[in-house]
């Protein structure tokens, strides 16, 4: 492929993505408008109604009928097109943290050779797949971190499709082709049939279709690949036991790059571990270890870059695409915020949104699954946390423009490496904002944060286990300052601790059985009734199967800035 052709192909792929982001976001009320998060006041609405609608068709109809003001996570291209045509709705599209990979079993032939893995990566026409299956509402990727991540390398969307180069690589390694086009190992034995594991079409139709297209691409350079659809749990079992040759899987990654350690470090190649490709490389291991236990941001940046470059060199798995997040918002609301990193269904919208006609009414937002449990210690679904995330706030927030850390309950913090008993360890110091209050009006102090950390650590609660397991000690210096000493050193301890939901000490003292505690049970059998947090909203009413009504937390810290407008 000539250089000009390559450039054209790249443009052909990238331009529509940016076109989609620009066009869809430009129709949103205050799309991408820069504001100072420290000067925002809100919530400006008194009530937020999360309407439970599990059926995607019903969600679309409800949005068209005006019964929903915000529909999140619209995944079907037909729905996106349909809602885009509705004059009463604005669409927003953002790059997401979702990433789809083709997994290769690095232990088995022919995938134990990085050159062969590179050849397979070059044989896959990602742009065509994204266009034909997802109508362009996805982004082809060539990166092990999603392009939206602030840690992702600039070339994360580079198009590497080049069938001729793939064949050249194979040829250079001594591979030959039979008369029928099948690949032959350098030792003369034909490459045996390989199965590409994929979830069943009735469960994941687009993934199954994508697997077919990947198999076609691989066959076109001689890999004898057949698709084998199976139950998702069975597939995960096979991937875990490494009883596979190829498999497709998608996962959601955090904004930080330390997740790469979980997926590609050799110590994670164990039952239940996430190194499903079985990559074992001492140089990569060293880089990932440095990344995982980086002492400061500079070290983290160096290790992150090195790890990503090594992954690009070793190609243990093949990145395919990252899905865009799409949401629709009624034009009856103003101050709706979205940009290329966040769709309109974000916290800033919920804080700033106001009815365009000035008439106070609840904002109706879809909740795509039943939350089922609102006990923050055991709630595991994203839908439960869609609600709990509005009730509880953490020490550190996420900047809506850069996705970097920004002050939340803590106005400042520091990360130091200190030496104790001859060993280095990380010390985190958080200084809380002054005058913080819980939703019941009582003061929020550093003692509450300590109580939260102690409670989570003492009870080894699975959801928070990894975040708190390395806490060595927590000390309260004064009512607004807290020092957390960790075992060992890691820059990521900051996000692990800073991202935890903070709860009042007086509530935690009354929780006598964290597993069985039902905060919405008025009998209060295993703990106190109600959820007390420091987030922008409070739980007003939960009617299973119907809706979750939230009301404004009148003690929320951002309400104090009411005299400061964002415009």
């Amino acid at each position, binding site marked *: 492929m000539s250089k000009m052709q390559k450039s054209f192909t790249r443009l052909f792929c990238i331009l529509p993505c940016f076109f989609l982001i620009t066009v869809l976001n430009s129709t949103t009320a205050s799309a991408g408008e820069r504001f100072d998060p420290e000067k925002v006041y809100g919530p400006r609405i008194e009530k937020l109604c999360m*309407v439970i*609608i599990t059926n995607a068709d019903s969600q679309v*109809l*409800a949005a068209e009928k005006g019964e929903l003001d915000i529909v999140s996570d619209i995944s079907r291209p037909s729905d996106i097109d349909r809602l885009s045509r509705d004059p009463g709705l604005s669409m927003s599209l953002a790059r997401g943290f979702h990433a789809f990979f083709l997994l290769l079993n690095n232990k088995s032939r022919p995938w134990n050779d990085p050159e062969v893995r590179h050849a397979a990566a070059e044989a896959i026409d990602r742009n065509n797949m994204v266009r034909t299956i997802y109508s362009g509402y996805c982004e082809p990727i060539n990166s092990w971190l999603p392009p939206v991540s602030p840690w992702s390398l600039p070339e994360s969307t580079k198009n590497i499709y080049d069938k001729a180069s793939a064949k050249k690589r194979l040829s250079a390694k001594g591979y030959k082709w039979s008369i029928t086009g099948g690949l032959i190992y350098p030792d003369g034995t034909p490459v045996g049939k390989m199965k590409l594991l994929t979830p069943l079409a009735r469960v994941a139709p687009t993934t199954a279709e994508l697997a077919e297209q990947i198999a076609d691409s691989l066959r076109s350079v001689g890999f004898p690949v057949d698709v084998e659809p199976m139950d998702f749990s069975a597939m*995960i079992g096979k991937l875990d036991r490494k009883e596979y040759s190829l498999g497709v899987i998608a996962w959601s990654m955090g904004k930080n790059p330390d997740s790469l350690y979980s997926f590609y470090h050799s110590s994670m190649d164990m039952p239940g571990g996430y190194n499903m490709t079985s990559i074992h490389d001492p140089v990569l291991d060293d880089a990932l270890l440095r990344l995982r236990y980086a002492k400061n941001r500079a070290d983290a940046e160096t290790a992150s870059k090195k790890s990503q470059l090594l992954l690009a060199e070793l190609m243990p798995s093949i990145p395919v695409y990252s899905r865009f997040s799409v949401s629709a918002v009624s034009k009856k609301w103003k101050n709706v915020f979205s940009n290329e990193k966040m769709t309109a269904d974000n916290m800033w919208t919920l804080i700033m949104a106001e009815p365009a006609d000035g008439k106070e009414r609840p904002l109706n937002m879809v909740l795509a699954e*039943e939350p089922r449990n609102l006990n923050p210690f055991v709630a595991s679904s994203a839908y439960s946390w869609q609600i709990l995330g509005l009730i509880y706030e953490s020490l550190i927030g996420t900047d809506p423009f850069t996705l970097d850390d920004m002050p939340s309950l803590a106005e400042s913090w520091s990360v130091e490496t200190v030496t104790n008993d001859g060993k280095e360890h990380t010390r985190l110091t958080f200084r809380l904002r002054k005058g913080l209050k819980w939703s019941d009006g009582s003061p929020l102090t550093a003692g509450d944060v300590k109580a939260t950390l102690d409670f989570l650590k003492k009870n080894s609660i699975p959801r928070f286990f990894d975040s708190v397991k390395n806490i060595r000690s927590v000390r309260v210096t004064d009512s607004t300052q807290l020092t957390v000493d960790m075992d060992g050193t890691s820059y990521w301890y900051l996000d692990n601790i800073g991202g935890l939901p903070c709860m009042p000490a007086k509530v935690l003292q009354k929780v006598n059985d964290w*597993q*069985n505690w039902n905060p919405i049970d008025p009998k209060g059998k295993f703990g106190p009734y109600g959820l007390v947090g420091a987030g922008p909203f409070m739980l007003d009413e939960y009617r299973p199967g*119907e809706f979750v009504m939230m009301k404004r937390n009148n003690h929320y810290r951002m309400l104090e800035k009411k005299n400061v407008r964002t415009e």
Partner: protein
Amino acid sequence: MKNRWFWGRLLSSIGVLAAVLVLNFILFRIMPGDAVSTIIDPNFSPEAKDRLRELYGLDKPLLEQFFIYIKQMLTFSFGLSFLSRKPVWDELISRLPGTLFLMATSMFLSSVLGIWLGIKAALNRGKLAERIVLRAGAVTASFPGFFVQLVLIMLLARTFPIFPLRGSVSIPQPTGALSVTLDYLWHMALPVLSLTLMGFGGWALYVRNLMLKALGEDFVLMARARGLSENRVVYGHAFRTILPPILTILLMSVPGLVSGAVITESVFSLHGVGTFLLEAVSGHDYPSAGAAFYMLALITVISNLLADVVYGLVDPRVRVGGRDQ
């Protein structure tokens, strides 16, 4: 003899239940994966997964898990759901009234409508009325449920917004008992209508065939010869003879009252047992799925037993013990 028959039936029912209990346990355990193994989250380490397994009791030996399970089933204390961490019994009970109302109402309406139309079709054999009933019955019974429901939503909730799109209450909820009741009925109208539409055809075709056979019997000719009114002949004689199979089908449909609502509840976003079952099976929620299937088996066994008893009550020819006389 009567007692022996009853105890025999009861013992066989208990045997069926025991088999269901054991299969329930084995089938879920031999299914690949468990509630923890499908978690793929880099922030959830294998160590944290082990902690979760411990919490769910999945770290215990299989035999110990089996005895815990049997104890839970026999005492109707089904433990905590893996997914919601709430008592399974509470979850089931909270969802049951909505499902029962939906399914019982639609079953009642579809059976009454179907039986009435079936009788009319049989009485008008070869005429336009019969052809309409036959065609309508065949068409409604053959369309997939979700398709009919989506068309109805599109037509009666979107294009002509007569009914609500979803759920069982308005937001905000009206106040006052009467308003709440009317609001609930308004919300349930479309789901019930859709199930009635899909269900009446089968009844109509079945009853028409039974009635045609019954109307050709000698006792009907005799009744007519005795100068009885047509209504008396049809409902007092012919229809009475086809009651046993109708009652059997009705009673055999009772388990479906609980389980048959999966699609309808999903399309209309209703909070019921159907969606609970679906979530439990797909999420490897052993306590919830085990309890739901156990309850279903229990209802099925009891319904079968009742069908046998009622069959004897409405048809003296098969009344238990009658053969001995």
